[in-house]
């Protein structure tokens, strides 16, 4: 659990982060969104004390984050820096091994972990491990940056726009992988992004920042349904709202009785994908199948459209 209490950061006269308080539950993923310069990175960096706050307290599992020396604290927290920040004079494998080496893991354990992460991020350890960062594409560099942050299996992971340089297909894969890792290890993740789609898809909760202030902190559905201010409304994108709302729900939760013609859609696809498929194929209804392939019923255009409406 991360408790942020009355955190303020001032540089000279300018207040960059202004009295922010929020609680991030353990094993959840919190997304911070906001315009450029709104203080997202600064807030993130106060958690691992790369930036010392002017006022306020941050507690990790109840302990003030100032109770350890800064470097020890930071070894226990994964940090994927904005723009990857790989060490140019170290190979990919050495980059990923950074924190485990600092923690004094033995060689075999480090190698096993590095290989595991590289395989997970689809970089062949034998081919890419000995390469230097400048010999990778931007997207590969970014994945190495994320792998480096994950290397020591931290309980808390701070990620600053980790997927910015990835193409849509790899980004999707990277997002799914991160969610899988989070489920498996119960990691608490704070992720900064500019991409509202990513925020709604990944976040258990979304924190919206504007000019250093936390303007709303709530579940994605609530942010979409009840934006706290005109600013949040604009950020969410008024015309996108119904689709984002649908993207939160699974098809199995919108199943109606009955049957329909054509190829069945899996129950754990998003309702938004189902609606897209219906509109594209011009059909009024689609059959739905469960994980075992058995028919569950059908989804209809009418049913989905009702779900896309503003919740009461």
């Amino acid at each position: 659990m991360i408790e942020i209490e009355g955190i303020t950061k001032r540089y000279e006269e300018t207040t960059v982060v202004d009295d922010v308080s929020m609680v991030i539950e353990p094993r959840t993923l919190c997304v911070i969104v906001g315009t450029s310069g709104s203080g997202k990175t600064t807030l993130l960096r106060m958690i691992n004390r790369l930036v010392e706050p002017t006022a306020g307290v941050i507690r990790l599992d109840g302990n003030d984050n100032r109770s350890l020396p800064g470097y020890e604290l930071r070894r226990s927290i994964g940090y994927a820096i904005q723009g990857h920040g790989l060490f140019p004079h170290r190979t990919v494998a050495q980059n990923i091994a950074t924190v485990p080496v600092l923690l004094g893991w033995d060689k075999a354990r480090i190698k096993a972990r590095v290989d595991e992460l590289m395989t997970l991020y689809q970089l062949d350890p034998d081919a890419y491990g000995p390469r230097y960062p400048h010999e990778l594409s931007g997207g590969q560099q970014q994945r190495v940056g994320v792998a480096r942050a994950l290397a020591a299996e931290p309980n808390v992971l701070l990620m600053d726009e980790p997927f910015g340089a990835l193409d849509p297909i790899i980004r999707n894969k990277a997002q799914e992988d991160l969610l899988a890792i989070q489920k498996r290890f119960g990691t608490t993740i704070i992720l900064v992004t500019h991409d509202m789609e990513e925020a709604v898809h990944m976040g258990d909760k979304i924190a919206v920042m504007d000019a250093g202030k936390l303007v709303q902190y709530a579940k994605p559905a609530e942010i979409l349904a009840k934006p706290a201010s005109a600013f949040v409304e604009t950020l969410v994108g008024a015309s996108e709202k119904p689709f984002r709302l649908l993207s939160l729900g699974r098809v199995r939760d919108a199943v109606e009785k009955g049957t329909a013609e054509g190829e069945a859609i899996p129950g754990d696809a998003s309702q938004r994908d189902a609606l897209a498929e219906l509109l594209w194929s011009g059909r009024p209804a689609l059959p739905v199948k469960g994980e075992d392939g058995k028919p569950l019923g059908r989804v209809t255009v009418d049913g989905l459209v009702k779900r896309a409406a503003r919740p009461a």
Partner: protein
Amino acid sequence: MKAWLPSLLRLLLVVLLVAFVTNPGWFEPLLKPLTENGAPAIYNQGSLLTLTLLHLRTVLIATVAATLVAVALAILVTRPAGAEFLPLSRSLVNIGQTFPPVAVLALAVPAVGFGEKPTLIALFLYGLLPIFENALTGLTTLPANVIEAARGAGMTGWQRLTKVELPLSAPIILGGIRLSVVISLATATIGSTVAAKTLGEVIIAGLLSNNLAFVLQGGLIVAALAVLIYDGLSAIERYTARRMGRETE
């Protein structure tokens, strides 16, 4: 130009240099025309090989000492605690450079006597500035997000310095050392005026006895050493820089 041509030339130069300092007699016919009244064409008041090695030793000692002090100084003034000494250390090192080497020798002799010591002092002071300046440039122009990543990973100040900052600025520091070595190789010849055993002896002997052959052979050996060492250090520099994906020159 063919890619192997520079390497071939270098190799040739090495072979010539080694042959000359070990068997100068072979080259007598070449130098003979430069002498008058039957004066010797090859330096005969000592072994060229010994003088070359002593010359190199003097330069090596001075450069190592200058590197240690200059890099330590640059590290010190780029830490938050030492930042206020930055202007002071810059002017100190600059003063070392504005002193003519002859003046340093003249001042050092009464203090430490004749011989290698005053030469070492002059070379040391002369070598400081280029290394210090380059080390300072290297340590202050590191990519900010790489340093932040090092902090974020939980490296201590010392670990950041030794694992990230110094390796990343190594090519630039090497550039300073290269400059300093070449200056020292030339300056060391002056050391012979205060009885240091360097190749300057050959040149001075030539000047005193009006023997052009001596002047030329002393000068050529120093020049060949300078070219080869400059070349070798440039190659190391390029290698370290290329590994980091930095383009050189």
